[in-house]
């Protein structure tokens, strides 16, 4: 087996046997659960409503996943940034060099393992958010409350009783009405297109039907696309921390500086830089990035129709720049390690 593969096996063994990753995982999962609980308490809603954004699965999932990814990003900066200087200081890094592993082979293995950190932690965050929100909320189309001229509590209660009898949700009715009124479909055809059982809607209930803002599929696709777009910035993030761990003498300094640079950029610099910020990977981080696609998808899922998706060309250029940065960080780290005193 080549030195690189042995180094990679060793790094994987160390990664999954160290407590740091497990502690990071626990913190991320607990953080996501706490965020979901707080969102629940803040909204004061009951599960199964589906008509309001606060009770809809998708915005809550995007919110919790975004929060968890933010924690995963910070944990990645700390864990990846601190690891190598600590091992150099304790001389633990010398052992692989005496076992037929070249320095380049070692740094490649370590770099690849560093990439696992944001994806393991981020994956745990997304999974926790998905499962937690599935327990707490129902999915549904994004709707806004109907404008009712005269409040008729009894009639509204009767409307909800009718919904329950028919096995329908208000947001499904909103989508159905949209297809009937805007797309010109027959009622039965619209119901069939939406996979709803056939029903006859009493005229009195039309005024209680909420207004469709976005279809569930549109929102879900937006969130999934945002999660997919996180691949490049999370990769660059891990390699950025890896490079700093190569440059700085102590783990505290490396992880502290890496965290400070990324957070300062996202909080202070990116809002002032405008489009210029999109050239730096930290702008696109799903959790703490200023132009996080996931945050935008969350706003869409919340029903904010003024949320403007970024220009696809800017998005593509940002993704390209992010991959290039990731490559440069990796190349620089690979070039630096052979020059280090161990």
């Amino acid at each position: 087996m080549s030195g690189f593969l042995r180094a990679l096996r060793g790094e994987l063994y160390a990664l999954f046997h160290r407590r740091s990753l497990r502690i990071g995982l626990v913190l991320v999962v607990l953080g996501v659960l706490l965020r979901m609980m707080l969102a629940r308490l803040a909204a004061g809603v009951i599960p199964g409503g589906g008509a309001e954004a606060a009770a809809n699965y998708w915005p809550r999932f995007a919110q919790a996943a975004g929060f968890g990814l933010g924690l995963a990003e910070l944990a990645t900066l700390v864990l990846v940034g601190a690891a190598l200087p600590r091992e150099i200081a304790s001389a633990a890094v010398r052992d692989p060099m005496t076992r037929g592993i070249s320095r380049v082979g070692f740094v490649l293995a370590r770099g690849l393992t560093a990439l696992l950190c944001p994806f393991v932690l981020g994956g745990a965050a997304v999974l926790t958010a998905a499962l937690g929100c599935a327990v707490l909320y129902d999915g549904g189309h994004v709707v806004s409350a109907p404008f009712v001229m005269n409040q008729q509590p009894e009639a509204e209660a009767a409307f909800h009783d009718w919904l329950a009898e028919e096995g329908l949700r208000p947001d499904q009715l909103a989508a159905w009405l949209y297809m009937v009124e805007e797309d010109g479909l027959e009622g039965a055809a619209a119901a069939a297109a939406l996979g709803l059982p056939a029903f006859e809607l009493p005229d009195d209930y039309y005024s209680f039907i909420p207004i469709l803002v976005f279809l569930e599929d549109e929102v879900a696709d937006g969130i999934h696309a945002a999660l997919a777009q996180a691949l490049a910035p999370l990769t660059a993030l891990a390699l950025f921390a890896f490079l700093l761990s190569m440059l700085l003498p102590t783990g505290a300094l490396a992880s502290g500086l890496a965290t400070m640079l990324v957070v300062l950029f996202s909080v202070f610099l990116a809002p002032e830089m405008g489009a210029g910020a999109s050239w730096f990977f930290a702008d696109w981080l799903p959790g703490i990035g200023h132009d996080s696609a996931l945050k935008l998808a969350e706003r869409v899922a919340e029903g904010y129709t003024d949320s403007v998706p970024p220009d696809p060309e800017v998005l593509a250029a940002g993704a390209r720049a992010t991959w290039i940065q990731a490559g440069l960080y990796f190349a620089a780290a690979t070039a630096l390690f052979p020059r280090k005193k161990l």
Partner: protein
Amino acid sequence: MSSPLALRAEALQLRFGSTQILRQVDLEVRPGDLYGLLGRNGAGKTTTLRALLGFLPSFGGRCEVFGVPSRKLHQLPLPIGVALDPPGLDDTLTVRQNLEIARIRGGIRGGRDVDEVLDLVGLVHRQHNRGGKLSHGQGRRAAVARALLGDPRLLVMDEPLSGLDPEGVEDLLDLFRRLAAEQGVTVVLSSHHLREVQEVCTRVGVLEDGRTVLEGETTELLARAGEGLELRCAQVEQALAILVAWPPVRDAAPLGAGRISARLDPGADLVPLLAKLAAAGVGLEEFHRKRASLVDLFRRAVHQGEEA
């Protein structure tokens, strides 16, 4: 063609910033040697071993391990075991996990396994302790255990005896002796335990201030050193002058605290010397003949190195 040296440093020089750490280190360790690398604190022993093993990216001179330049140590076809100072354990992993990861990295299948080396160094009861929770001596033992994994043909140990209890020192030296004698393993150990090194090492090298000041076969060096004389008095300079002027004394050097060590021609009669010292008014507090030991060789070599 003769087989390459196990370790070779030739005109090794190294500077860290403005400090010249190594000035002229020349070492030769032959396959099968049990080599003791000696020197005072700061003499350059650890740095020399780091350079020899390729841990330092740039230095002057030449360093080779079994003929392979130390910068390309990963190309070495033979397994080696290394335990430098600090022990280099991953503090976040247990002793056993540290050994497992070394086994994985080395692709070790045969030879001594994890259980065997833990038993050899007496760390079975501490195998589930994390590296950061070990005492100094236990950390050393763990590093030695890691170096012994598999079937290394060269063991490089930096002060492996430091922090060990007397029983541990005995066990480890006995192990090194057996590995060298029975399996032909080359063992290089740096140490301040001169008596123990004299007992086990077939060859020694002494560094002083970044230079090799003495190197050779232990028995040959001791034989060449002849007999010795050690005395203690208040008038060191006066006594030293008398000693140097007396023909049977080959050389003499102060050891500090009023003590002087001298090398003598074999069978030299000391009575005339005692008379000369007494006549000069040198008040002797101690005066005894002794066989030269590694301690004497070391002191002389270091003294000569200081003067150089």
